[in-house]
């Protein structure tokens, strides 16, 4: 199976899952991590009436910007929350991104997500991307991540926000992640024979 056919498969399947389900969990091996992000950004770009919040716990915002610059630079409907730059000692600022001092500040993260969605037009379709749930588990006690996950699920359901939770297989060290991801409406498990 070629890489390009995997990506084509993702392009077909992932947006459908996101649109048809309130909450989607995507379990993927690290080698398809970039492809999934590309597909998600392409999807968000295709929806002109959408408003999205992309929470990054894996890569600094500026790394994502450098990686996908052409794809995301002009889309002002995607707002970012970066939980890793500050803890990595990166002090760059950006008006399109909120920087949180540490991925352990889950209440702060929840507050900023809520504040950002308040800026969205009521009529727009709203999306929340958590990249990734497994990385969050690396930094936090599993019990707290569970509570935070339940909080996000409830808030996004109440506000009609489609939420997507990435789980990177290589980080899936905890049984707790498997339990949490089963609470989503749809699980997409990306394997080599995806199509």
């Amino acid at each position, binding site marked *: 199976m070629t890489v390009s056919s995997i990506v084509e498969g993702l392009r077909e399947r992932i947006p459908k899952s996101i649109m048809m389900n309130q909450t989607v969990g995507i379990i993927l091996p690290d080698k398809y991590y970039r492809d999934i992000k590309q597909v998600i950004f392409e999807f968000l770009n295709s929806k002109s009436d959408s408003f999205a919040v992309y929470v990054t716990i894996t890569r600094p915002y500026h790394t994502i910007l450098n990686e996908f610059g052409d794809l995301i630079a002009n889309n002002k409907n995607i707002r970012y929350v970066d939980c890793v730059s500050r803890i990595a000692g990166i002090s760059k600022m950006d008006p399109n991104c909120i920087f949180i001092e540490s991925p352990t500040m889950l209440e*702060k993260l929840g507050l900023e997500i809520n504040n950002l969605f308040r800026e969205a037009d009521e009529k727009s379709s709203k999306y929340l991307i958590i990249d990734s749930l497994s990385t969050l588990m690396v930094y936090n006690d599993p019990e707290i991540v569970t509570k935070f996950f339940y909080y996000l699920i409830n808030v996004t359901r109440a506000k009609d926000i489609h939420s997507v939770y990435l789980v990177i297989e290589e980080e899936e060290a905890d049984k707790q992640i498997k339990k949490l991801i089963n609470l989503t409406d749809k699980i997409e498990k990306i394997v080599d024979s995806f199509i």
Partner: protein
Amino acid sequence: MSNAELKNNGLCNTGIETLDEILGGGIPVGSTVLVTGSSGSGKTTLCMQFLINGAKKGERGVFFTITEPLFKLTKNMESFDFYDKKLIESGLVNLIDLRIISERLGLDTEKYTVEDASALLDILKDIADELNVKRLVIDSITALCYRLQTPEMIRDFIFKLGSSLAAMKCTTFLTSEVPPQKFKYSKNDIEEFISDGIIFLGDEEREGDLMRTFQVVKMRGAAHSRIKYMMYLSTKNGVELTPLLSSTSKIKSKE
């Protein structure tokens, strides 16, 4: 009751959305509320935002400071978007240094006699009355009570102040300084019993992060929640509250 009060069912909206939800709409008008916390817990910011939010609705307020000089207080508040200098200039929010008043009254700066306390109380009541104040802050009641020589004087002072301001339908915040990480509401263990409400600003450490917490311990006449919240101070929104996911005290008890 005024039309505004009737509209709000006799409640004084703080203007801080989550706090008004916690309080079931707001603070009963005329209440005296103890805002208690250690150094850096956010007492002054919370009180100032309460006053400014009231002023934006046309409710005149006065902030009496004892702990911080006025120029420092205003400089620190200017970093917050909610702080509007025009409200100060227009007189809707009045900032008064109580130490200057004490000096002008010829009061002893260290210890007040019964007569001194009475004179100070009268001047506070007169200022509130003359300005038709609806929101009042004393920052801090601890520093003021330090000058009152006996527990009876403290109790008498706060009771009379609270009663007079309640009669003027003025909702009052008194800041109370307590040591960090101690579950205590005041230095003298008296203020909390006279007050109609207690808001406790605490600290919680998790993974090296010293988080501010917020809890309404008591509010007479209000159907309030006692759940502990996380409190953040942002330059954009001022006081922000969000439910606490986990308490470290719970984790310690498991150990």
